[in-house]
């Protein structure tokens, strides 16, 4: 079985988010492709923790090819550890022996998440799910080799995935991931397919399992304000190599003092102003 976790955010005044993130849609597409790469039909089950409004999103998932969907009825603003515990519980409840593999062919292979949600963006829920299920995690994947899934004989062979994960400084690592595992992938990985109209209509009739979830604790701050960059502590000058190193790690730099200027311009004038500034500072002849 493959579980896909979708976080649905009610569309609000801020048009930048609402619905399901590209990372989460990408997670479902990966699940469907993994399923299609195997000779047998591995069920794909989508889970969301959130309000009733999230069910429309689950129907999109069903229309695109998911086999089943569950909604855990709880506020979406729960702490990620609490969200994850509820999701892990719901997964465990899907069947005895699902996770340790004793259930045979229908055992759990992958839990696929987005690598960060749009509204909260902690990226931590998948790690908590892995911890709660006590299985492996591989987070922030930028590539997954679908062809290399070794699962021709589902009942005996361990399923293995090969994937690439981002590290810092532009480096990446190649991972071998054995099922069962939680993986989270970036939105750039793939795009969710469009469903056929008839599949969509069928999905509208499908029942979505709803289970009760926790009410708290909610991830509420004591204080909320708009983001402003934190003033960086500035370092005293030091030897070349250290400076370079510190700079590359922290980006702190003592030389960065310019009078800054804010101007409101019509586009044509703005473009001219950009070029003028580049010329003034010698970036352009």
């Amino acid at each position, binding site marked *: 079985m493959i579980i896909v976790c979708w976080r649905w955010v009610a569309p609000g005044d801020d048009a930048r988010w609402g619905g399901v993130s590209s990372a989460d849609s990408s997670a479902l597409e990966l699940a469907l492709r993994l399923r299609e790469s195997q000779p047998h039909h591995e069920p794909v089950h989508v889970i969301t923790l959130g309000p009733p409004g999230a069910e429309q999103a689950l129907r999109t998932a069903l229309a695109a090819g998911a086999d089943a969907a569950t909604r855990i009825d709880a506020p979406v603003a729960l702490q*990620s550890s609490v969200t994850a515990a509820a999701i892990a519980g719901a997964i465990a409840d899907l069947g005895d022996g699902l996770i340790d593999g004793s259930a045979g062919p229908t055992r759990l292979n992958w839990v696929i998440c987005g690598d960060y949600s749009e509204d909260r963006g902690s990226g931590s829920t998948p790690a*908590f799910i892995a911890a709660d299920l006590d299985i492996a995690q591989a987070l922030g994947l930028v590539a997954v080799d679908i062809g290399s899934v070794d699962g021709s004989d589902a009942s005996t062979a361990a399923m293995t995935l090969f994937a690439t994960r981002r590290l810092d400084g532009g480096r990446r690592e190649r991972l071998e991931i054995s099922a069962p595992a939680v993986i989270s992938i970036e939105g750039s990985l793939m795009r969710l397919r469009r469903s056929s109209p008839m599949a969509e209509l069928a999905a509208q009739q499908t029942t979505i399992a709803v289970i009760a979830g926790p009410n708290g604790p909610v991830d509420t701050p004591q204080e*909320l304000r708009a983001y402003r960059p934190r003033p960086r502590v500035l370092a005293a000058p030091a030897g070349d190599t250290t400076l370079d190193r510190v700079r590359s*790690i922290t980006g702190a730099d003592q030389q960065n003092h310019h009078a800054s200027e804010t101007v409101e311009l019509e586009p044509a004038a703005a473009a001219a102003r950009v070029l003028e500034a580049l010329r003034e500072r010698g970036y352009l002849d």
Partner: protein
Amino acid sequence: MTPSMLAVIPVRDGLVPAGGDETIAECGGRAILIGSQTAAAEVCTGIVEVHLVEAGSFEPGRWARGLLEVLGREIADTTVLVVPGSPDGRDLGPRLAACLDRPLLAGAISITAERVVVVRAGGAEVHTHLVHEPVVATLQPGVRGLEQHLEPTIAAERATGSHRLDAGDAGEARDRVRRDARVLEVLEPDLATIDLSEAPRIIGGGAGLDGPERFETLVEISEHLGAALGATRVITDRGWIDHAKQIGTTGVTVDPDLYISFGVSGAVQHTAGLGSPDYIISVNTDPHCPMMQLSDLAIVSDANAVVDHLHRLLNLGEHDG
């Protein structure tokens, strides 16, 4: 328990990750270094107390469990455990929180033993959490800076203690449930990104730009200006340009002299990976967004139209936009 802080730094082959030194500094010089070749790790900030835990290759589940075994005491006595928000740190933080049954405050921009300030909503909001119970937090790399540039110290020279974790026991490996993924190899930066990370001039595009065609136009403009083109995660997620071109803490960290941004809001994950350009020009409709505040020249205008005009002013082909 008096409020206290302790940094937990995942180390690979002796390398401290992005934000590692800042995390140690934020914790007043108290740290645990866990990973491979910890004895060779260099730290560029003051060290007060450092524990080394040699743990083999990166396996966050095993590391978290092992840490409790060897340093359970120190950890239990600490109110705020801080992990750098580097890729390994973001993986380790929640596993540690789960083992300790503590809440996690992820993506903080400022941490003390009493309060943790995190960014949310794609970088638009700042939430302050008062610490009432022990927590684990991850610190966004690049937002803090360091007060002192110290010559790198070999952490082992100051070590308060050193420990060793087994690289996973045989019994576990036989289980179907292998609790961590296996690292096969580490790939050096993509050739596609190297030009970005070393480019002295960079143009960055963000969600203020309205379509993939704008990036085609920007490619021509950046070529003309001798600049490399990058983008925010919103854009790479949309697939408008390759994900290797994502600038920021989870993409490529860059350090150009000149940075020109179009329709970029300046979320912390983006700007923290931006290095310290000498000169920043930004075009954005919102004069108050962080990117505009960081800019030397902040132009309030429609970035899409400005891109088209720039293209025309530079005489770059026929473009009837």
